[in-house]
Every structure is written in structure tokens, then in C-alpha cells.
């Protein structure tokens, strides 16, 4: 990369996305940021400029609106010239109990956490494929590795992203595009503000560093932090009869 890298972030006001952006900003990156809240995204843009970003474009958009997703990706390409790293990071933690009896809530949860991600990832994949280079970063979750009673709607959406991203890895490898699937465990962010935090939790800042390192090294799947790979590997082989008895 001769000039400053072009970074496109969808859901740029998420804490993990912000942490990632700060790391690239120090290196003088150029940014295209999309998120729903105009004031919040402007606050992040100012911060990135002070940290060293050479340019920051912001787009205020509701990423839940799938019609808007493809044009938004085009806007990112136009603003940046070429996209070196595209990160899709928006999401929300659905109310599991509510989704179980209210289908509208269920559809909302899937629309935010799966459908719009899928549309954005597909549109970005096409752009990166035509460029013949770049990195596409999808945020899945350790929760997507196995359905757990407490959060299986969220898990289903994140599991869907994981399968989609794995498919894209195969498709885009031929074009020289790297796909990185990030699976966070417990990250201390506004989305998880109501949880009690223990030893397994890490800060968004640390998550950001892990993600940037994984993208640089062209990793396909990265757990954040790393030990979730082993926790989930163990949980995946627990027989269903025993798993159902676990309070997870």
C-alpha cells in the first residue's frame, strides 16, 4: 500500500469498531464511516482526525434498511478510491425472552444482526473482488458456535454470519481478497453494559488490537480473546443431552 490505507467501517459507533479505527488512525488511514447517529459518528470522526487520520468521510445511515446497503458500499468505494479494509460491525443484543413469543422482535433481531450484515458483506465482497485486493472483516460471535438456551437468537444470527463469511473466504481467496471472521467472547462494551464482568472479559481496546493483528496476518477466523477458541471447542463436543442441562 503506497498511500494511506482506506478503511470502510459499517456500524462505526460500535465500541469494537471504534477501537479498531483508532489503531488505523494512528497510521494515518483514510476512513469511510457509516452509522445511524449523526452526532455520535461526528464525535468519532473528530477523534480519529486528532489521532492522525488523513481523511474521514461520514455517512449517516440506518444499516437495518437493506435497500440502503449496496449504495452505501458504493459510496465507500467512491470516497476511498479503493477499500483496503472493510469492517461490518453493527449489531445489538436482542431480548431473548421477548423474541421467543414476539415474532416481530425476532425478525428485528435477525434483520439487524444477520440480514443487513449479509447484504453488506455481499456488496463489499463484490467490490473487493473487482479490486482484486483488500480485507473483508465480519464480526460473528463465540455465541454463534453453539445454540445456547440463553441467547440462541443472537447465536443464530451470528452463526449465520459465520457460515456466510466462511463461504466468502472460499470465493474471494481466488481474487486475492482476505476474509477475516472475528468471534468475540465477552467484550466490555455498551452492548454488554448490564452484565457482571469477570475474568473472562476484555476491553474493546484489546479486542481492537487483536482484530487488527489478525487482519494484518490474514487470519481467517480469530477468537477474541484467543482462549474462546478452546472454550467453544470443548462446548461444541459436549453431548446435547448434557449440554441442555448446563445453565448457559
Amino acid at each position, binding site marked *: 500500500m503506497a498511500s494511506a490505507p482506506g478503511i470502510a467501517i459499517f456500524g462505526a459507533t460500535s465500541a469494537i469498531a471504534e477501537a479498531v479505527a483508532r489503531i488505523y488512525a494512528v497510521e494515518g488511514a483514510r476512513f469511510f464511516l457509516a452509522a445511524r447517529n449523526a452526532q*455520535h459518528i461526528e464525535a468519532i470522526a*473528530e477523534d480519529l482526525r*486528532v489521532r492522525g487520520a488523513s481523511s474521514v468521510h461520514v455517512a449517516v445511515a440506518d444499516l437495518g434498511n437493506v435497500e440502503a446497503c449496496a449504495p452505501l458500499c458504493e459510496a465507500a468505494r467512491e470516497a476511498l478510491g479503493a477499500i483496503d479494509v472493510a469492517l461490518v460491525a453493527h449489531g445489538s443484543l436482542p431480548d431473548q425472552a421477548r423474541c421467543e413469543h414476539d415474532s416481530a422482535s425476532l425478525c428485528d433481531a435477525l434483520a439487524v444482526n444477520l440480514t443487513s450484515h449479509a447484504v453488506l458483506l455481499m456488496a463489499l465482497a463484490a467490490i473487493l473482488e473487482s479490486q482484486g485486493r483488500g480485507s473483508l472483516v465480519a464480526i460473528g460471535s463465540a455465541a454463534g458456535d453453539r445454540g445456547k438456551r440463553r441467547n440462541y437468537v443472537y447465536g443464530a444470527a451470528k452463526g449465520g454470519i459465520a457460515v456466510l463469511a466462511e463461504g466468502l473466504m472460499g470465493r474471494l481467496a481466488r481474487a486475492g481478497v482476505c476474509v477475516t471472521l472475528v468471534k468475540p467472547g465477552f467484550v466490555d462494551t455498551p452492548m454488554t453494559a448490564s452484565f457482571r464482568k469477570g475474568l473472562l472479559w476484555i*476491553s474493546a481496546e*484489546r479486542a481492537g488490537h487483536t482484530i487488527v493483528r489478525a487482519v494484518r496476518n490474514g487470519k481467517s477466523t480469530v477468537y477474541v480473546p484467543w482462549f474462546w477458541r478452546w472454550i467453544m471447542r470443548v462446548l461444541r463436543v459436549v453431548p446435547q443431552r448434557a449440554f441442555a442441562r448446563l445453565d448457559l
Partner: protein
Amino acid sequence: MWGNAQPELQSWGRCRRVTQRGVEQHWRDAILPSGPPRSLLPYGQGRSYGDVAQNSGGTLLCTRGLDRFIAFDEARGVLRAEAGTRLSDVLALAAPRGWYLPVVPGTQFVSVGGAIANDVHGKNHHRRGTFGRHVLRFELLRTDGTRIVCSATEHRAWFEATIGGLGLTGLVTWAELALERVPGTNVDIETLPCTSYAEFASLCDASDATHTYTVAWFDCFSYRDGRFRGLFTRANHAAGSPRPSSPLGTVPFTPPFGLVRPAAMRAFNLAYFKSGMRRAHKVETVPLDRFLYPLDRVDRWNRLYGPHGFLQLQCAIPGARAQDGIDALLESIAASGQGSLLAVLKRFGAQPSPGILSFPLEGTTLALDFPCAGDATFRLFERLHAIVREHGGRVYPAKDTCMSPADFEAGYPDWRRILPFLDPGFGSDLWRRVTSGLGA
């Protein structure tokens, strides 16, 4: 590896633990959670020692998510940042560009808002005064939803009430700071032996005009008849840009009993003194961060004091009576048999702070950490606070756990001037304690 996740909402000294709820603040345009019946109190990095950042039964406004920069004028050295930004983040941005904070406390892991609320000071107080002197402007968000932009020229009374205002006048959302040019991030340090208060005073007289930073450390276990084993350090900024010092490690958990015990303290103090004496009378160039924040290299060092935590006494005694006062304090500590690692003496200068409740006064400050040994420690503090009061001194609220209302009123006779500016929806354990019965 998980050291950065939000720790429990406790004070740094951890000797009076309370249950309190925290609400994360992430956006400076957000309004405050509705106040009463639960009172609010800003909580930054949890580096205050006592109960100034505790609010039992209330809600803490956790500001670590308010950590964005807003604007940096590199030509003038003026930085605007959200109030939860840590000084370490400010320095990581500014130092490579030739700027530094004019005043830093003994740790860089405090928030800008906390530095304002406690009007912190550093080893260059005799030159630069307090942190608040270098704050140009800030925005104060009140529970009634109003936002007041305060500076020395706009809403000056609010500016003066909030600097050193212990977080009680509202939430500072952002602040604009004046930085200063530095030749590099090294310092030239000179260490000199210092064996009595009189010697400390004459070293200050000789050094305050020639050195930006001056501070003395002594072994309080060695105190006898006005003499002690001590080291006086003076330093000036120097060119060079060393890599930031790498941390030595984290204290990963609180051991079931305190590791800071008298025998360990005596051994540490003696070793520290000997290693200092080996460098005596030499000028060495060392990285600035290692000189200014030696304890920052051990993350969560407060855990070494064990489950009962520790208390710090930091007081200031006005110039004329400082020698008598400090000797009386040291006498009393020696008689108690309790002792401290790293007792620190520092002469404060005459620069006034804008803050009404700002702690430093022209004179000498003494700081010591005591492992909390229950009632014996609290009784010792009562005696020490009485000595401070008799000598016209005052105790630093940011470090305090047990100053009485009478101590507070004697130390801060103007304290009632802050009353009109307190946010009715805010409160703290310290404030309720030190004003109880005073008719606030």
C-alpha cells in the same frame, strides 16, 4: 491480558468498600440519568484513594467511555478532549509532537475529569501550580439538563467551583487543556542525600529556581530526633525521545493477606535508600515517564496491600509552620510503630489555583501510605489530623478516608463558597462525611 476490563467500582485504597451501581457514559451529548432519589457522582479511573469517588447507595457516572479527542491545535498546544480521557492517552498523542501536560500527578492513569475535580498537582508545583491552572475551558452538564461552558472569562464562578470541586458541581463532559513545549521526553535527574526537614528546606531553597521538578523521599522508619534517611531529587526536562517504559507486570489478584508489612517496608526502604545513595550527586538522564510515574509500571499495585487495603495521609502545612508541623507528624507516626513505604515531602509554590476547594497551599506537603490495620490506623489518623489542624494545615480530599467535619472546616474555611454551585442531584460519601453537622 484482561487488565483493562472495568474493575470493580472501588476506590484505590480499598479500605472502605461499598456497593454502588455504575452507569457507563459513552456520548457527551447524552443527558444524565435522572438523579434523585439516587444521587449521582462521576467516576473516572478509580484512582482516588478514599471515598471522594464513592457514593453509597447512589449511582456512579462511569466516564471511561468518554475518551475521545475533539480537537488539537498543534501550533498553540491546545487540546480539547472528552473528560474520561486518561492523561496517558493525552501524553501518547502530545509527547511525540513535542508537547506535554504542564502538570501531571504521580500516575498518568487518571482521567482529565478526575484531574480537574481533584485539582491535582505534581512534582513541579513550585513552578506550574495545579492542573486547574492549565485548564482553559470545559463544559459542565447538570442534572437539570443545562450545559455550562466555563472558563476564566465565561461563567467564571462555575469554573472556580468545579476546579477542585470533587465532582459535585455536575459532570464535566469535555475540557480544553493548555499543553507546554518540552525539549524531549527525558529528564536529567540529580539525587542528593537529605537527612532532616531543615536540610530538605534548604535544598528546596537552592533548587526551586533552577529545577522544574523537586521532591524528597524518606524512610519514616528511620525517623529519630528530627533526623531521617532521605533522598532529595531534582530534575529538568532533557532532549531525547526514549520509548515509553514497558510495564513490569500486573498484580493479578488481591492476596488473602497484605504483603506490605513492617519488615518488608523496612527492607524495601533501606534498599531504596542504598540504591539512591549510589547515584548521589550524579546527574543521570532517564525517561520522563519513569521519573514521574514510577508506580505505573506495576499495574494494580494497590492489591499488594491485601483485602483490607491502605490509607494515605496527604496534608499540606503552610510555610512558616511547616517544619514544626512535619516534625510533630513524624514524631507521632514513629511513636505509633506504624509506618509507610515511600514517605514523600514536596514544597508547594505560591501560584494560586482558580479552584475554591483546591488543596495545595504555599508550604510543604507530606504523603504517606499506611496499610489499614483497623482501629489502630484510624486512631493514628485522628491524631495526625489534629496535628495538621493545629498547624493551620489541611488534608487532601482525593486521598482522604477519615477527615472529620472539624478538620475539613479548619482546613478549608472558604468551603461554603462552593455551596451555590453544587448540583442538587449529585453527592459523594466524602462530602456527606465532611459536611455532616456543619449545616451545609
